[in-house]
């Protein structure tokens, strides 16, 4: 009988916080073009220097903890993680060990099979190392701009079971970080980093198999692919009678495979001990409350509210809330509508998801720089909803609106796009068309119902294109139901 295996996956995510200054000194964290410009004696690890904790590192990690349902440890401390590397100036990294400030949380991801909880073991504070560049010179070049930049490390429980779930979890964590405005969340640039711990076991077994750690997952696609590959590799190994080795692997994107990292066979004994140069951090109830009330509404909650409050389909809600700025813009636009109601809300959503986002993508701009305001879009939806113009004309108004501050009404006037909705006039035109097309009328009566479109088209033509098509259609239908004239 063939054994079925399940994969046990845990993700370790490092998020670089976009604070103005470093974790333990006042150096800037801006992405410097030139090497070794954001440095000072402290982050260079000069003798006699001491760390001083950045307030935002504490506040922002607590926010992340609150946003992921973690317990916030009232008193936490820092530890030194001791090892040697050319871009680790002090010969140790200031981190947290036994008492991370956030622990025991969880997030809910929306999988294809429904919602699933992924536990968060811990989130802790630490500092980033510098960068070693190996391929520019005969020597390794060391740049310490990044040394001391604040990081938070988010460790998930091994609750993830598939590569897809890992992808969704990572997307979710990223969204929260971006929503909280504490991290750029860019996997390619390195403000977000992800390592995966992967093991397999036969379904039904309760003990864990040997796990490997996979690093260098530098895009969402690669996260999914690498995990898929590694799961398959481990299953193949075990099926072949071999054992999984506990090693660290790199994802080789060019070869599309995981391979063992070349490393010294030194077991890492980090000799963690309490950092004597930093005092403890105490987050009391009132500080925690203050941070809690400063939390923005997060993605999942907002998505659900968009469905219930605006009657949007789940798909629309997901797209609109993916970016907090877009979501806020959407709500502002809806608030300016004269015609409130699900139809109008959906119309606003459609405009954003198609035309507005197309502009954002093409010009690489945010929604606030797309060329129109939430009020302007609302005015456009209004003139379509109230029949002033046809939806066909709406595209023209939209295009004319971009880059101006003009409302839809103003542009309808300017461009003469007002559609004819005078019922009396339209009735007259309907009668005229039916009278002038007796043969087609007979054919219609005989069963060719698709001639409705022809009759409507004739009315619009006679109106010079301005007849309200929907109104014409309903008058026409009425007229056609009359007994023979």
């Amino acid at each position, binding site marked *: 009988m063939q054994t079925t295996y399940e994969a046990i996956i845990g993700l370790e995510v490092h998020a670089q916080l976009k604070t103005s200054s470093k974790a333990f000194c006042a150096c800037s964290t801006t992405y410097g073009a030139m090497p070794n410009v954001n440095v000072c004696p402290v982050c260079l690890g000069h003798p006699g220097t001491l760390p001083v904790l950045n307030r935002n590192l504490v506040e922002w990690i607590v926010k992340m903890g609150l946003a992921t349902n973690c317990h916030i440890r009232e008193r936490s401390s820092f530890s030194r993680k001791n090892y040697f590397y050319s871009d680790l100036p002090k010969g140790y990294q200031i981190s947290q060990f036994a008492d991370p400030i956030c622990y025991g949380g969880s997030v809910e991801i929306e999988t294809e099979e429904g919602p699933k909880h992924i536990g968060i073991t811990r989130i802790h504070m630490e500092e980033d190392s510098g960068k070693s560049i190996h391929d520019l010179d005969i*020597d390794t070049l060391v740049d310490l701009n990044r040394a001391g930049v604040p990081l938070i490390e988010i460790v998930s429980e091994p609750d993830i079971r598939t590569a897809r779930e890992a992808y969704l979890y990572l997307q979710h964590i990223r969204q929260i970080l971006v929503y909280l405005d504490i991290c750029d969340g860019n996997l390619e640039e390195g403000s977000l980093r992800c390592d995966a711990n992967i093991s397999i076991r036969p379904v039904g077994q309760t003990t864990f198999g040997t796990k490997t750690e996979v690093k260098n997952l530098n895009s969402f696609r690669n996260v999914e692919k690498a995990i898929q590959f590694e799961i398959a590799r481990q299953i193949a190994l075990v099926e072949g009678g071999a054992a999984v080795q506990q090693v660290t692997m790199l994802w080789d994107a060019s070869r599309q495979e995981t391979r063992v990292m070349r490393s010294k066979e030194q077991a890492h*004994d980090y000799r963690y001990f309490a950092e*004597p140069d930093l*005092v403890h951090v105490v987050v009391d109830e009132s500080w925690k409350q203050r941070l809690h009330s400063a939390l923005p509404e997060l993605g999942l909650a907002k998505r659900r509210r968009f469905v219930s409050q605006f009657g949007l389909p789940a798909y629309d809600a997901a797209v609109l809330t993916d970016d907090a700025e877009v979501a806020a813009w959407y709500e502002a636009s809806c608030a300016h509508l004269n015609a409130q109601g699900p139809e109008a809300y959906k119309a606003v959503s459609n405009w954003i998801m198609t035309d507005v986002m197309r502009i954002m993508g093409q010009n690489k701009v945010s929604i606030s720089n797309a060329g129109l305001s939430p009020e302007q879009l609302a005015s456009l939806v209004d003139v379509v909803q109230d029949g002033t113009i046809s939806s066909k004309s709406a595209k023209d108004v939209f295009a004319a609106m971009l880059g101006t501050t003009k409302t839809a009404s103003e542009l309808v006037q300017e461009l003469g796009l007002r559609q004819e909705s005078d019922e009396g006039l339209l009735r007259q035109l309907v009668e005229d068309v039916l009278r002038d097309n007796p043969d087609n009328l007979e054919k219609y009566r005989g069963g060719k119902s698709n001639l409705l479109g022809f009759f409507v088209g004739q009315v619009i033509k006679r109106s010079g294109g301005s007849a309200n098509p929907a109104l014409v259609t309903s008058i026409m239908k009425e007229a056609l139901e009359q007994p023979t004239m």
Partner: protein
Amino acid sequence: MIDKHEVASIASLARLQFSDEDLTTFTHQFGRIVDYIGAITQLDVAGVEPMTHVHDVVNVLRDDVAGTSISTAEALSNAPKKNDAFFKVPKVLG
């Protein structure tokens, strides 16, 4: 009793290296030292909390404001090997 092999391991962790002769002398001295500090195991510390700081000051925080950094030239001024922009170290072999 601490042996040479263990002392060599610790040296490796600390990025120190001894000649074989020095390692022997060192192991002997080290053994003597470790015996001496072993007096700590005689102390009854049941239920005692470790002390990590002298004062119970908490929350010493710095506002998140960027200050001035030093110039690249100054940062590199003490470097044993460098170019205009970087510190230089030999590539790690193997």
